[in-house]
């Protein structure tokens, strides 16, 4: 077993720079639902809800030491900065360097744990073995008991993946692109079957481990935080509907804990990649995350939110509002009677406020004032709910009317500029008219002085 020889003469600082830079496009989160108390002698515990330790300038949380073992890679994926045809500085950590960094960062409370991925060196199996060895060192020699998220390398020896699973809290295999065709065009070395095989293996491992744990309480835990995956959004031509369908089937068939969506950032100049003049498709990513939450916590199905004929999300309305205005036959919902599932489908009511409503109404009817205090977002909910048979204001249950009201305050200019206006025009409705209208001017308009 040879050691890596890339970037030998570099300082730790230089290596960290290169390998953190290379790992930054991977998404991870420590909210794994695993609570693991400290064991009293080694460093570390896990908190179910996860802890964010800092936030970087892009507003994403920094909770894990997110690094690659090496950015040396034999693959040539077109979207990836580390592809073998790119001329970028290459570096590799030694296992000891990773362990020291993790421990020292962890005890200063900089991080919640380690996120380890890697470029493919020599072969997937070789890379997986390096990762596994590093984790073993960290867990046994350095006695690290905190959170570890590690990538399973598609195509690696299943035994190595199994071994790694006993050392890590969460494993993930990146799906990268939602369809096999996309994968073929942008990542010629990756195959969908190769990606799904380790995913299935980990799923089966978790199942088997659950049975073992039922028998022997102290059996070693296998991937206790479940597995996740990641898809790149906007690099290929898939629709939101396709992406959401894939995510839904991953949740159902592979029992993933999370599917992460990552807006495509064009880091390479390549003919096969789309040009994104407006920057990464962040709004699209945001809508997908919103829909993802609807799938996991609100009892929605992908087919309800989108369809073949409407394959993309509404830019102006979030997926739940969008669903609600197209299904007005379910509304208005009577807050004091409706079931929990019905409440969950009301825009402006989340999981927490729905639970609070259900708990609070046992002791008597709720009114709008109280509803607001329970945390319901009234400006969104008021079109869809009644309290004691009354709406909050005199509103109409019409799609156009509600859409107009939900969107107008948010994005007036943009809404008007697409030429689809539902409002009565006024003198100040010119897109170029930036200044606030004073009450005096309004008065002048009313009496015909302007």
């Amino acid at each position, binding site marked *: 077993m040879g050691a890596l020889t890339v970037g030998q003469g570099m300082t*730790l*600082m230089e290596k*960290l*720079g290169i390998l*953190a*830079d290379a*790992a*930054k*496009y991977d998404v991870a989160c420590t909210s794994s639902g695993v609570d693991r*108390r*400290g064991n*009293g*002698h*080694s*460093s*570390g*515990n896990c*908190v179910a*809800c996860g*802890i*964010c*330790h*800092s*936030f*970087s*300038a*892009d*507003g*994403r*949380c*920094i*909770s894990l*030491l*997110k690094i690659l073992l090496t950015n040396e890679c034999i693959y040539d994926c077109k979207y990836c900065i580390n592809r073998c045809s790119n001329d970028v500085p290459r570096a590799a950590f030694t296992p000891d360097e990773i362990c020291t*960094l993790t421990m*020292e*960062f962890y*005890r*200063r*409370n*900089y991080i*919640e744990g380690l996120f380890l991925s890697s470029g493919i060196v020599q072969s997937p199996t070789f890379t997986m073995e390096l990762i596994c060895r590093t984790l073993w060192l960290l867990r046994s020699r350095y006695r690290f008991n*905190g959170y570890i998220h590690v990538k399973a390398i598609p195509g690696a020896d299943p035994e190595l993946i199994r071994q790694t699973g006993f050392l890590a809290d969460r494993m993930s295999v990146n799906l990268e692109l939602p369809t096999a065709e996309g994968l073929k065009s942008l990542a010629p070395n990756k195959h969908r079957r190769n990606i799904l095989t380790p995913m299935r293996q980990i799923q089966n491992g978790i199942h088997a481990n659950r049975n073992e744990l039922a028998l022997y309480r102290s059996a070693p835990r296998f991937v206790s935080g479940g597995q996740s995956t990641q898809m790149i959004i906007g690099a290929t031509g898939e629709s939101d509907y396709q992406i959401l369908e894939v995510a839904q089937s991953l949740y159902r068939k592979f029992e993933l804990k999370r599917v992460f969506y990552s*807006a495509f*950032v064009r880091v390479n100049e390549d003919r096969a990649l789309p040009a994104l003049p407006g*920057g*990464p498709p*962040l709004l699209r990513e945001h809508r997908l995350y919103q829909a993802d939450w609807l799938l996991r916590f609100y009892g929605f199905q992908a087919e309800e939110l989108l369809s073949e004929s409407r394959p993309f999300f509404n830019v102006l309305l979030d997926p739940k509002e969008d669903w609600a205005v197209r299904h007005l036959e379910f509304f208005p919902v009577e807050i004091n009677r409706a079931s929990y599932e019905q409440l969950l489908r009301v825009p402006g009511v989340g999981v927490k406020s729905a639970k*609070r409503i259900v*708990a*609070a109404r*046992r*002791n*008597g009817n*709720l009114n709008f004032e*109280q509803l607001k*205090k*329970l945390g319901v977002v009234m400006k969104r909910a008021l079109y869809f709910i009644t309290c004691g048979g009354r709406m909050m204001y005199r509103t109409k249950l019409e799609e156009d009317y509600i859409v107009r009201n939900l969107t107008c305050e948010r994005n007036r200019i943009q809404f008007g500029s697409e030429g689809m206006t539902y409002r009565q025009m006024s003198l100040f409705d010119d897109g170029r008219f930036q200044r606030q209208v004073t009450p005096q001017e309004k008065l002048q308009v009313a009496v015909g002085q302007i």
Partner: protein
Amino acid sequence: MTVYQCEDSMESVFTAVYRAYEEKRPPEEVSLSMTDEPMLFAEFIPVEPDRERTRKVVSTLWRNFGEDDYLKICMALAAPDPEKGQAVYRTIVHGLRDKCRQGHLFDDLKDDYVRKTFELARGVLREYDHQRGFLRFKEVELIQDCRNVAEDPGGELWGEFSLCADAGASREAGARSVLYARIGPKNHLLTFLMPHFADRFPGENFIIYDESRKIIGIHPAEGREEEKGETSGTGKGEGIRKEQCERKGGSFRGSSGDAAGEQKPMTWYLASCGDGFTALDGLRSSGRELAYQELFTYFCLKIAIRERRNLELQRNMLPLRFREYMTEFQKNMKQ
């Protein structure tokens, strides 16, 4: 109207609650005040914190409402709000009168007092979640002359730590050092932060200094119970008053230990220090500390994606008031 005047402590509020029940006063006629604000036609009763009564209230709350809701009440009492005593009292009254089942104390959020307590607890929990992540330790050197700095009142404290540093040195090769963190939270979080970090770093000596309340939490590394037993009782330093915090620690996470005795006692202390407290000013970072600070700052810089730059989002997620205490936002660092 009867007004129980409490200090700003959990013990004091719980004692007042106990006395209100003991004296069989109708809850509507009782008010818990934490200020000296006078009230017309009211009978004022100053409350002396009492350990036994507190214990009884704690066990009642725990038994009736369960651990989670009990913790929420504790959290509400950590908020800096002067009306928290009254809110908590009426919440308890509400819960006992309606015979709330475990975990259902905060169901009736229509009630103003219940909601007030709930909101206070939520605010504290939110800051606790923030602080748990944003707190930064730095490794400091234990140097001999640190103990002599201007006859600092914390001399005794350092004595204790140098002891554990010695113990650590003999236990493992490579001396263990002390981690030091400075925080300035709005709420009194130290009692919640200490158990978290004690659980996370059993083998570390660490101190957390709450600047806004002048309180230090001290956690000596595991494995030196003997010395600890000796030092915890004395506490004769002028500026430092050691509180008996095994109990405090115990009454939060650990106090299921009442029923299940097998749980290990908490191994941390709180000490409140006077105004002239300077013992922590002259701390010197250890040799490698600066290197790791730079490494982490560089990491934070590198991990950001330039194309997604969004400082507003960063500010929403990480409010500016925390940054004063965070390594990666220090001015002398490259960011």
